[in-house]
């Protein structure tokens, strides 16, 4: 326990370092170190069954609790590993651009916040890191310092601060009603008397609205497509790991560990949430269909995909829980690949518009292959990772007695296909009939630092689906969370 807190402290220490000269080295060392530490904790937790916890009081009955349970481990592993690849990518991407110190400083802080969110052991700790995340991502969004970027940053800040305020209200109210609460596997609110139920319903609504801003639930998703002006690694991180995922993770935490899934269902809170998530899924897909900017299309796709997690959390069935938790990881690795690839197209050939991508598969085959793998995964075509999530979500919704969700999943898959497959088609099978103008030339199709990260994540997306049944695959871990160790569903 001590060693873990020591490591965590050490990691934080590293992360907050801003060193202009040794920045790259430090960044990578920090990232690698963190990955190692997370794996060590994973080993302790999964094999030795040892839960790490640090806590101290902040006064007024608020405790600061850091704890690593299965769910945090999942998010931790995701954020630390993806942070490593994104750092590599960002180093290559921003080569020679101004303000890199500031960028990497906040970049590291952003991941610190993520780690904190993952390890938070109660709502107030969660909230602290959640707000911290809001503040440190703002400089990343406006990094380019253009007018559009500043505008987007302001929109982003408005949305998230309002969301944060709502969340704060909810957290404090809950503390007043129920006293200090730690995250417990089955939720802790069931003990409250029936006279409190209405208050709990309101609190749930407030919490979900607060978290829903970051999780981009329609109609609270407005900031996400706008924030696209950020550099590609930032978008990748925002969409795959940090902000959006933090919101979704928060929703999962609130449903499972604060209210308890069954209790929330008993209060009648989950069906409306499932409907809201379904609306978001369909609406996001439809919007994505109408975008011509590749990154914008990906952004709306995130709006849609992230709600799978909410949807899975909102169905009372273990299969759905597995689907939600595993999609937390799967969506991350697939979406980060897509953003890396979009960044590669933009950075090496200056292509932003989907209509310009015709025939780019012949010029940049590796990037195009990785894009294809991730896009097919997003649609939910086996053997890519996305299929596994959809499979479990589908089974779960049948199990939970809401078969209409299968319809939502299928329609959403069809829509996903409708906005991804034409892109893939034009990348590979149409000819551009024009010369490519290369912005950054290199020996390979793009600098190696821009190629290796998406390769790793695309391979992860493929293998996570291909070997889903392995005990230590994301699915294996998710099953352990939902069913307990070694139980085959």
């Amino acid at each position, binding site marked *: 326990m001590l060693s873990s807190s020591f490591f965590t402290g050490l990691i934080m220490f590293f992360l907050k370092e801003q060193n202009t000269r040794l920045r790259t080295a430090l960044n990578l060392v920090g990232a690698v170190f963190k990955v190692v530490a997370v794996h060590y904790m994973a080993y302790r937790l999964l094999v030795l069954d040892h839960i790490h916890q640090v806590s101290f009081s902040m006064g007024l009955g608020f405790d600061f609790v850091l704890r690593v349970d299965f769910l945090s481990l999942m998010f931790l592993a995701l954020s630390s590993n993806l942070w490593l690849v994104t750092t590599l990518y960002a180093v290559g991407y921003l080569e020679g651009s101004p303000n890199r110190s500031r960028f990497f400083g906040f970049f590291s802080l952003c991941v610190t916040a993520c780690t904190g969110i993952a390890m938070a052991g109660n709502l107030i700790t969660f909230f602290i890191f959640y707000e911290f995340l809001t503040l440190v991502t703002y400089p990343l969004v406006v990094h380019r310092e253009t007018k559009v970027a500043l505008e987007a940053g302001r*929109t982003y800040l*408005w949305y998230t601060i309002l969301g944060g305020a709502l969340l704060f209200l909810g957290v404090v109210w809950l503390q007043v009603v129920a006293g200090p609460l730690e995250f417990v596997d089955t939720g802790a609110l069931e003990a409250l008397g029936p006279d409190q139920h209405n208050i709990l319903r309101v609190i749930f609504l407030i919490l979900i609205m607060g978290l829903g801003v970051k999780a981009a639930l329609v109609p*609270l998703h407005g900031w996400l497509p706008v924030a696209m002006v950020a550099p590609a690694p930032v978008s990748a991180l925002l969409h795959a790991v940090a902000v959006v995922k933090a919101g979704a993770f928060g929703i999962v935490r609130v449903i499972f560990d604060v209210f308890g899934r069954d209790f929330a269902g008993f209060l009648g809170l989950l069906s409306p949430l499932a409907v809201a998530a379904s609306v978001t899924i369909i609406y996001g897909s439809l919007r994505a269909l109408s975008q011509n900017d590749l990154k914008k299309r990906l952004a709306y796709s995130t709006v849609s995909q992230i709600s799978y997690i909410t949807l899975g959390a909102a169905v009372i069935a273990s299969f759905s829980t597995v689907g939600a938790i595993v999609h937390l990881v799967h969506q991350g690795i697939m979406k980060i690949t897509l953003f890396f690839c979009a960044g590669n197209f933009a950075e090496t050939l200056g292509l932003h518009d989907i209509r310009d991508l015709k025939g780019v598969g012949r010029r940049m085959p590796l990037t195009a292959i990785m894009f294809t793998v991730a896009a097919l995964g997003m649609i939910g075509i086996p053997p890519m990772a996305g299929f596994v999530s959809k499979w479990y979500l589908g089974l779960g919704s049948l199990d939970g007695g809401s078969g209409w969700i299968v319809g939502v999943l299928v329609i959403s898959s069809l829509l996903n296909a409708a906005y991804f497959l034409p892109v893939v*088609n034009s990348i*590979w099978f149409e000819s551009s009939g024009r010369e490519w103008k290369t912005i950054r030339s290199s020996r390979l199709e793009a600098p190696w630092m821009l190629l290796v990260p998406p390769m790793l994540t695309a391979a992860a997306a493929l293998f996570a*689906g291909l070997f889903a049944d392995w005990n230590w695959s994301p699915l294996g871990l998710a099953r352990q969370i939902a069913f307990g160790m070694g139980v085959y569903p």
Partner: protein
Amino acid sequence: MIWITAVFFPLLIAAVCVLPGPGLRIGCRLMSLAALPALYLAVTGDACTVTDLENFLLKSSLGFGPSGNTFLLITSLIWFTSGLFWALGPRKTARSRSFCVMFLLTMCGNIGLVTARDAVSFYTFFALMTFCSFSLIVHSGTDLARRAGRIYLIMAVLGEGLLIAGILMAVFSSPSHYFIDIASALAWLPETHPVFLTLSAGFGIKAGMVFLHFWLPLAHPVAPAPASAVLSASMIKAALVGWINFFPLGVASFDTWGIAFAALGIGGAFFGAIAGLLQKDPKIILAYSSISQMGLMIFCLGLGIMDQMLWLMAAPVIYLLVFNHALSKSALFLGTAVAGSDISGPRKKILVIMLAIPALALAGAPFSGGAQAKYLLKEAVNAGPFNQPFLSLIFMSSILTALLMAHFMRQIITTKKKSQATFSQTMLWVILIIAILGLPWVFHELYRESRIMWTDSSFLLSAAWPVLTGIVLYLLFGRKIEKLTNIIMRSLPDMALIIDKTWYHLNSRITQHGLMETGWGQMNFARFTERIVQSQSVRKISRDLELRMSNWSIFGMLFMSLIIIFALLVLWGT
């Protein structure tokens, strides 16, 4: 281990193909070998050898399904022949690389799906096959191919969507995702359960079931000849494999579905033949003939679904039909590449005779495997309900098939296209045709039900007669038949066009819809709050308030009242 090799060996060769340098050359050579492990397994393997792949997908299992080695044998044989045919072809260019890789990936999918023993790996291989074959279809890059590819893709995605819904429901209602459990679990479901509808329609798209067939005559012919051969001969059967795996055949009887399948099947058999008569391109005629032949198989399947006892008789018929159709159709498709206007004299005569062999086998002429299949088909129909009307329908469809084949022969003789085949390709094709001649013995060897009755004159006569009728009809009334079919086909809507238009309309509707254009559906907090903060009234109010507050008397009063309230609170608290 042997199962893993059989299924994944094509992937290994595909990996060789993408290697830079001599990789493509070596890969193309090796390509002919890709299906050999599967072929070996199909010949030597027995039903008990099963490989469980722990950790792979959601626990996979590979082995022979309920229909034994039939489908693996056919699949690997067709893929082997087509792969060899391609490898023997003219020198490969850089463009061939993508074809090679995709061909091998599709092969892996097709071999995998006939060996999968669980729903998840089946679906995985099915998807692999479906999506990789898209690139075979659009390989030529012409506008025609592109349109065919688009419609294929739309239908394929729809099919995948239906299938995943169906498979989810099927797996949910059974204790595990293995086919053994699924088939017996589905037997207990009511006939109205949506799982049957989704699975029927989902696979129906792949099988070219009538009403869902329209992508097929577009997509199959535009691919290069070896790809057309595998599409039409082997991949189309994936749907049958799916139905046989999922449906509780021989366990339960579903009247409604049985009749629906039988009706759709017979409908397809008629429709395919009639629509094919209208076409001039030999490859398109063959694609329509595939719809027609698949119709017969679907009809048989319908018999099996209708009555669980009948399945025992219907199953071998399906296998024989599949076998016969697969080999003949691949020979015919490859034949379209071999035949050409530049061949003349005695070589042309030999060629025509050679081509006539698979065409006659398909029509079910005496001394062919087709005749045996048709004979067993009639026996199965005889044992089932509605035997008289069904028998006459089948008799008519046989005549139509013969008509269609005669039409095909005429078109290929008068074709303007040049022959594209090398000498070794032609030789391979000749070997394939000789193999078709030997089919009756193979059938007898594989399925004891099919006896060789070549001395039985009534058997020979019953096989010969629809074929002769068809040929004579075509020779006498060829023009009139064409006119008639023209009238019939004109009255039917062109579904492909409708799909194409729907796609465009929906797409533009959605993208241009008001909902999509504006910021509708999102609350723009940023703009909203800014507007409030910067509005005139808010500014005025705040300025006024500030002015008032700076007035000492007002401030003093506020201060006093605050103190009083505080004191009251303290008093009340204690």
